[in-house]
């Protein structure tokens, strides 16, 4: 049963991730999409195939949902572990979202944290902060994604526990 729990979590996580990628393929101009995904772009401003106004926040939802589950399926299926995973991803996701907020941007300007000759990783973090905006709906999407992932973790872990007792 444990294998099934992990498999369900893995498949759900991967599916969530694929849906997140799909938002970028359908609703983002290719020049804003990194790597090979930009070659798969189906973006068309006038297309009827679109996630509409949800496209702005769905990636946050799917990302949190999928990575909670992908990490969960690699660790022991206990309530404590699940909570730790959830707390970790919530911290990471919300921290990155807050970094796009004005106070943090102002702080970066004041301290000149990112120099022009910063390395590859710092340059990309700088681009992430400068090109993005803090969005409360993203935070809501993150919380929803985490909640859904946690429920799925609980359901699958519970089944595993019942199996062990039986």
């Amino acid at each position: 049963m444990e294998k099934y729990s992990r498999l369900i979590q893995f498949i759900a996580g991967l599916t969530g991730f694929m849906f997140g990628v799909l938002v970028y393929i359908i609703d983002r101009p290719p020049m804003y999409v990194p790597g090979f995904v930009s070659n798969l772009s189906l973006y068309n401003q006038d297309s009827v195939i679109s996630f509409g106004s949800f496209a702005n926040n769905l990636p946050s939802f799917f990302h949190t949902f999928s990575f909670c589950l992908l990490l969960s399926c690699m660790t022991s299926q206990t309530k404590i572990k699940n909570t730790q995973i959830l707390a970790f991803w919530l911290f990471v996701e919300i921290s990155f979202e807050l970094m796009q907020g004005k106070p943090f941007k102002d702080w970066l300007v004041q301290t000149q944290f990112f120099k022009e000759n910063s390395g590859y990783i710092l340059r990309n973090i700088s681009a992430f902060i400068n090109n993005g905006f803090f969005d409360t709906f993203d935070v809501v999407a993150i919380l929803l994604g985490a909640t859904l992932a946690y429920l799925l973790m609980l359901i699958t872990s519970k089944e595993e526990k019942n199996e062990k007792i039986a």
Partner: protein
Amino acid sequence: MKRLHSIASKLLRTASISIVVLLGVTTIIASNFNGPSNTNPTPDPSNSKSVFKEISVYPTKRCPGTDVRAHWVTSPAKNIIIKLAGQTIEKGPRGDYVFMGQDLDSHQNIVEVEFRIDCNDCDVKKFKIQTSRGMDYYKSFGASLRDVNYRYRVILPPKEWDDKLVTHNIELSKPKIYTCSNSLTEHNLNWHYNKGRDSSGFLNKENGFRESFSRTIQTSGDWYFSISSPDNEYTCPGWELNTYNPSIIFGVSCQ
């Protein structure tokens, strides 16, 4: 052998977890990838005229230090060129941009920013960004509210007006002369103003249709103006306002 298997299993699990965490963080950072600056997008072969489907620049009435944000979407998708005081920035067909407060502060009080779609005969939008460095006066017109007679609303959208801008005084510019339909007699009527919980009062002949505020009142928001006749000395079936909706001059400065 069993121990070796256990160690290998643990290592594999740690490596898998590390990869997932790394992938997770990398994909977050990549989510706002804007493409390297030297990327030349493939030119669009179609010559169809591109327009701004969405464009907003805010706040356009700002205080020193405040960043101004822009958002745009072009249709059909074409790259754009942003021009601000001689500076040129190339951007994609859809995006956001922040004009940093410090940069804007180095320009004059009024600076024009132009958004031009990078093709022949395509859409161009211009915005004026005004920086308040002392007392400034802005004139705004009231829009008639259809459900109430002689009640007007002046909308100063918070997105457009920096929330640091405060109003020190308001003055009715027009109309100041009121006559009743089919009559040439002028009447002394009051204008009642109201800004929700912030303030309310009267603008009339006695105070020169002008009101000063001793406490801080945020400029942005909805201001309501209505004709009132407190003494009910004269009832008129329809006031002639000389076809003018009220225009109000706001005296504002930064907090």
